């Protein structure tokens, strides 16, 4: 463990965590991309993860729904440990929503079909009910009028809002965001962040990899700073931005703020 003063990164205060990662390591070939990660995520907690590119922040959240496989340590999501058991993996994926940098909507399906696919095939919800849910979430992300269009006909910001709605239709317990605004034109970033802020207000558990520090300040309970595959520092946003402990964090913040 990190011998510094700050050893628990705020994990000790979390009771009844929905995600618990202990001593987790991951390698890409020879490259040690995640080193001894310990992280507890509380229910309804919102965590923003930042750090330079290549620091392993995306890989970390991709391990939580097994898009990447960890090689050592333990990840437990909502009481289920992630192992090679494919049934458990599918169960966890159904409970964990994910929003990607490049939206990854299904381009051959209409917006409404993008949203109902998961509920119908994974949750076995009747089509009618799935469509009602889908329309509800499309209204929520303020895009209901586009339901019958194809993803290729929408702007980037609209596509990302659809992607968020698609995840919400599965009624996930946790939402992972992998740089959700990095591929967007500046004027579309706000419409996506607004949707995410709404979501935060409703108490969704969120892990967000982002460089939007304004979002971190206003929404996060904890901000994690990662570098070289390790969690360097974690704190509440106020202390994190105003009083960073680690030199590496100070340098990073001075470069991006």
């Amino acid at each position, binding site marked *: 463990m990190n011998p510094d003063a700050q050893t628990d990164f705020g994990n000790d205060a979390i009771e009844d965590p929905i995600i618990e990662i202990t001593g987790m390591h991951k390698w890409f070939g020879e490259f040690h991309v995640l080193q001894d990660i310990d992280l507890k995520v509380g229910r309804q907690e919102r965590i923003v993860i930042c750090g330079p590119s290549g620091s392993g922040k995306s890989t970390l959240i991709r391990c939580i*729904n097994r*898009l990447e496989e960890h090689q050592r340590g333990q990840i437990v999501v909502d009481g289920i440990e992630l192992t090679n058991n*494919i049934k458990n993996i*599918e*169960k966890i*994926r*159904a409970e*964990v*929503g*994910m929003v*990607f940098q*490049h939206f*990854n*909507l*299904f*381009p*051959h399906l209409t917006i409404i079909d993008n949203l109902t*696919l*998961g509920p119908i*095939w*994974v949750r076995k919800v009747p089509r009618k009910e799935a469509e009602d849910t889908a329309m509800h979430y499309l209204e929520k992300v303020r895009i209901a009028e586009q339901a019958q269009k*194809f*993803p*290729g*006909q929408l702007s980037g910001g609209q596509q990302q809002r659809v992607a968020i709605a*698609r*995840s919400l239709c*599965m009624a996930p317990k946790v939402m992972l965001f992998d740089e959700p605004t990095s591929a967007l034109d500046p*004027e579309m970033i706000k419409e996506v962040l607004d949707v995410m802020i709404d979501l935060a207000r409703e108490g969704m558990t969120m892990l967000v990899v982002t460089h939007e520090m304004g979002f971190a300040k206003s929404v996060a309970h904890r901000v994690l700073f990662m570098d070289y595959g390790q969690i360097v520092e974690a704190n509440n946003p106020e202390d994190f931005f105003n009083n960073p402990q680690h030199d590496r964090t100070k340098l990073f913040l001075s470069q991006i703020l």
Partner: protein
Amino acid sequence: MNAAPTDLQPTETLKPPAASVGVLGWLRTNLFSTWYNSLLTLAVIYLLWVSIPPFVRWAFVDSFWTASGKECLEADTGACWSIIPNNIRFIMFGFYPYAEQWRPGLAVVLLVGLLVFSQFRRNWKKSLLYYWLAGLVIMGILMKGGLGLAPVESTKWGGLPLTLLLSVFGLTAAYPLGIVLALGRQSRLPAIRSLCVVYIELIRGVPLISLLFMSSVVFPLFLPEGVTVNKILRAQVAIILFTAAYIAEVVRGGLQGMARGQYEAAESLGLNYYQTMRLIILPQALKIVIPPSVSILISAFKDTSLVVIIALYDLLKTTQAVLGNPEWMGFSAEAYIFIALVYFVCCYYLSSFSRKIERELDTGY
């Protein structure tokens, strides 16, 4: 955002320069733009002038449409198209009993009807499957006999029904098999993957003719005494196995063209492998590979004519048999032009159908 001036309009658009439009403008830019272009244009016009009129005279002006072979030979001026109407029933149906030839005729009409019906997307429902099943049973009874129809041995089948049988079922069976092979080639299980690789490489490494020979000559050697497998079926299986290997490689190309993100998005919704492939990956991958798949299907359709070498009387072989008749010897040009037209119509139909499907499936990405 709203603070920007809203009365900003694009400036008036300009017309294209007048010198580049009109017939003369087109001629000048496309045919006579430089001295060597003009020379080429004139050379092409001369070639057309010496080749087209004689052909038209041979094919249409001096041609015979109803005369017997003898009269054609004596006149010896133009095309003897009467070879086709005079022998059409043998060309179309081969050695099928003459009095019963309405049966394969009806079967062909039924098959073509089903194909045309299936090409409209609004008919792509579950009922289509039942129509096909019913159609197949009816066609089978028509060809083989039964229900009061006199039985006809499959050795007597020939002509157009045989060509369509080999190609339609060859292609519809080869496509799914090719998809399975392509998926198998991408499998994470080494046994399945290497099995598929070996199959694809082996089949692609030999010509169709050798497969057909093996099916007709070598394969029966391994069968126990007294057991025979229908020759048409053996040729059919050879065509399916052969075409599937090519389809598999084309589909693999489509699968590899899929963005990683599509798999990840499907997986992160909790879809399993089968659902991911069926609902997300294959619909997109197969759409990408429509043009190369259709190329393979077209060439497979034409390759069915190779069954002549194992003495199946498909459309090409029945035509050749007519040319072996002393009365019609020497009119092979006419006969082959006709057969080429039949093949062309089928292939053109296939490719225009594929263009239509491509347009309909286009969702703007």
